């Protein structure tokens, strides 16, 4: 924590060395977050750059009540959401239609896939599904919280999650079939 304070103080004095040090310390993990929320690598690059700009802009607001990494994480998730919301406006309306079927999708096939393959599956989801999936499944937010963050209803959040899982299952099935054909 003491190291963090020193690093933040130096960053607040606009020290390029300190800024680079902070970047190097967190870039890999924040790029991991960016990749999950982005549909393409270029979008992930945008989130990474915009996220760090926001971090340096708002660094004086960090109150040392939690970890620096946790604070950065929130900023990167918010940055990703901002970009996602913009993309959602231009996406197809069907993405936001509600679906009342209960979730119950078995994704056990995941254990057979590599991390890179699963990341590819997540990135392949439409932006609305992908954002809700990340927020609920990986970050652990509730549907009520997601609703507030994305300015959608709780039910829409649930249906987006359901649709995301259904889409993932279909992709897993396709992958399984493809692998099966290769083995034959």
């Amino acid at each position, binding site marked *: 924590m003491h190291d963090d304070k020193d690093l933040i103080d130096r960053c607040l004095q606009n020290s390029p060395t300190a800024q680079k040090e902070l970047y190097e310390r967190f870039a890999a993990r924040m790029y991991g977050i960016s990749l999950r929320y982005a549909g393409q690598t270029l979008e992930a690059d945008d989130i990474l750059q915009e996220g760090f700009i926001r971090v*340096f802009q708002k660094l004086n607001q960090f109150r040392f009540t939690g970890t620096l990494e946790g604070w950065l994480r929130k900023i990167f998730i918010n940055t990703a959401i901002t970009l996602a919301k913009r993309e959602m406006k231009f996406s197809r309306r069907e993405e936001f239609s509600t679906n009342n079927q209960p979730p119950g999708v078995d994704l056990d096939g995941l254990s057979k896939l590599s991390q890179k393959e699963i990341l590819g599956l997540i990135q392949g989801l439409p932006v609305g599904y992908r954002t809700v999936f990340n927020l609920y499944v990986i970050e652990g937010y509730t549907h009520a919280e997601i609703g507030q963050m994305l300015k959608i209803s709780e039910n829409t959040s649930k249906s987006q999650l359901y649709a995301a899982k259904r889409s993932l299952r279909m992709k897993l099935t396709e992958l399984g079939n493809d692998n099966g054909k290769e083995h034959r």
Partner: protein
Amino acid sequence: MTTEKNIDNIPRFRELFRDFEADPPPQSWDVIRSRLAGRTRDKKTPWLLNTMVEMFQPMNRLYPALTVLGVVLIALVIWLGIGPSNNIKGQALIDNTELARGTAFLFRVRDRAIPYDSVRFFGKLDLDSIGRFEFGRVPSGLYLLRIQVHPKSQFSKHYNHGYYGDQIHPDSATLVRTGNPVESYVVRVPKMVSE
């Protein structure tokens, strides 16, 4: 009751991606650094300018609306800048001698039928050493031009003022119409008639 474990392998996703790391592109830091350097430079510029620049950043939700507004405002400024404007220039004389000390007044005539009763003051200028004057950026229209002799002028004993058309009374003055930029209006101040 369902738990996270039996729904959709959520713990597996969390385990895989909660601390997921990936190497960012090598050029990312350079881009961030140059943008940060730009922002530091911005701090030296006035607050209002900084705020305006900030509002036009692509991350800002007002970006599209403000961009359109900005374009409209720029177009308006350009239109006003190149819009019609005129110069009214001339020289004040007294008996063919340049009036070195005096003031030129320009009044806009609103109603041609009652020119004197409808005038509105537009501007005034001190005459130069050879009696010349020039009003710039004058909107198109009709004007009344008056020359006032300075009280300390050598001519002030017998001359007080005159209107274009060499008249002492405004209702008999000749009105000046804009649109002839090369013309120079010569005003000969009439001598006061002693009673």
